[in-house]
């Protein structure tokens, strides 16, 4: 039976932390996204032709939301579990009657909620800069929620894996940011030479951005079914990894 009180306690605790640090949680992603719009949308975008019939400023919105949501999910979730590990206060979590379900719902749920809120704020901010219509709003919302959750799961794993704060930064910096930038956040991979198009298909982020952009403009780089399958597989893999971590106590218990 799920310890719902524990889920509630963890979730409330994590959300309270987000509100305490609301300035850095919200202001900085909104500010940096606005800068992207100013630089890429207004300054450079004017000299780039329309992609799939969409102005460049509008075209980058889904990619920008993805970029922020992915990095925020990872940093929120990884910090949430790494900090108690660093402090030693994790003893309480380890000795509490909670298992993988409670921990995932509480920590990952809270991290995903935070990045979802940030994603929605950026979406709202973007309408101040560019005209925007969402072709499939329900699909867009569902995809956004799932991606927030999936990358929070991934971040949670990183938070447990990391043995210091440097390692905590390495994965987002060295892996996620390049994958997102090269995953078609700011361009359609159909604009690339065929060789690089083929290489891009090995980048998992391509499938996420493609699906998310499809929900906005109805056009995708890769078939939507393939994207959904990729997202589902990634989520399943992360859940399996966390289940294994809690079963063995890897990097949590001595």
């Amino acid at each position, binding site marked *: 039976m799920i*310890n719902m*009180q524990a889920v509630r306690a963890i979730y409330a605790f994590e959300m*309270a932390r987000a509100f305490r640090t609301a300035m850095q949680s919200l202001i900085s992603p909104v500010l940096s996204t606005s800068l992207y719009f100013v630089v890429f949308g207004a300054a450079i975008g004017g000299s780039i032709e329309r992609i799939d019939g969409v102005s460049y400023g509008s075209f980058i919105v889904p990619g920008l939301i993805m970029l922020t949501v992915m990095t925020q999910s990872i940093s929120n979730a990884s910090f949430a579990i790494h900090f108690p590990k660093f402090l*030693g206060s994790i*003893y309480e979590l380890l000795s*509490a009657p909670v298992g993988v379900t409670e921990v995932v719902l509480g920590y990952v749920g809270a991290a995903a909620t935070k990045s979802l809120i940030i994603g929605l704020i950026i979406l709202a901010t973007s309408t101040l800069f560019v005209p925007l219509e969402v072709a499939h709003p329900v699909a867009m919302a569902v995809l956004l929620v799932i991606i927030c959750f999936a990358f929070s799961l991934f971040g949670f794993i990183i938070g447990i894996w990391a043995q210091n704060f440097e390692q905590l930064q390495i994965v987002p910096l060295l892996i996620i940011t390049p994958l997102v930038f090269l995953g078609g956040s700011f361009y359609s991979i159909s604009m690339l030479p065929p060789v690089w198009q083929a290489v891009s298909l090995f980048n998992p982020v391509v499938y996420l951005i493609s699906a998310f952009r499809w929900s906005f403009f109805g056009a995708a780089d890769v078939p939507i079914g393939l994207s959904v399958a990729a997202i589902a597989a990634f989520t399943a893999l992360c859940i399996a990894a966390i289940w294994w971590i809690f079963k063995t106590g890897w990097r949590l218990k*001595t």
Partner: protein
Amino acid sequence: MTAAADTPAMIEIAGLNKTYDSGFVALRNIDLTIRKGEILALLGPNGAGKTTLISTICGITVPSGGRVLVGGHDIETQPGKTRRIIGLVPQEINIEPFQTVWNAVRFSRGLFGLPPDPARIEEILKTLSLWDKKDEVVKALSGGMKRRVLIAKALSHEPQVLFLDEPTAGVDVELRKDMWRIVDALRDEGVTMILTTHYIEEAEAIADRVAIISKGRILLVEDKDTLMQSMGKRSMSLELASPLETVPQSLEAYGLELSANGLEVTYAFDTRAERTGIASLLRDMSEAGLSVRDIKTAQSSLEEIFVELVERDTGDDESPEAPAMRAEEPA
């Protein structure tokens, strides 16, 4: 209120072993039964395995072998059941610094599956003199106050078994007194308590039983009173009617100590010995013409017993200190 021997067991440990990844053996084949409602003091030098034993029962450390039942449930196969009834006050002050005292305690209660109960938390905070600090952020508190918060967190979910891992190490007199009062109140509620401490007088004052652990092995588990009686050296002080300058030669064999003013001699004896020598001492003193005005006996403290046992066990092989530091590193 010593828990009687026929009281049901609360914690049953059988053949428990723990070897850390580093190869350090922290627990060697531990067998220990702790009865419901009793207070067990776990004594041992640094690195003896006290914290490892507690961490294993609480689920923070993974055992390498053996079995632990808490309230009849296996800690590995039914952790949900055992953990709900266990409270832990850790040795280190490990606590999230940016939350308020109130939220910290409320969080613990929820984490252990209990519905919110502000009245109960208020009561706990008041008992621990934390009530006027409830809205303060933990990091603003002094070390002693933080320790009180850790105790409040452990009590917030109304545990039936409470582990106190050196709860009074480095705390002021006030908190120690509060701790003892709380332990008394919990004892009346029937809470089983396991206490590790460096203050042996603390174990002597509040424990029902004492377990001595050294180098991962339980050397001895005994009712405190029995232990003190059976192992205690006693000393007898005899007050003399008139002062002596030196102990008469006829009494030399007794190894008497003469006080500075010459009015008191002290005789040490072992209750375990076949003959204590008291009768013959008194006879020989009377023959030497000494008249005795008063006799007092005193018992050796638990501390002396402890030091003696551990010293006997700790040969001059490896020092227990170095690997101990690794063993007690927080997870």
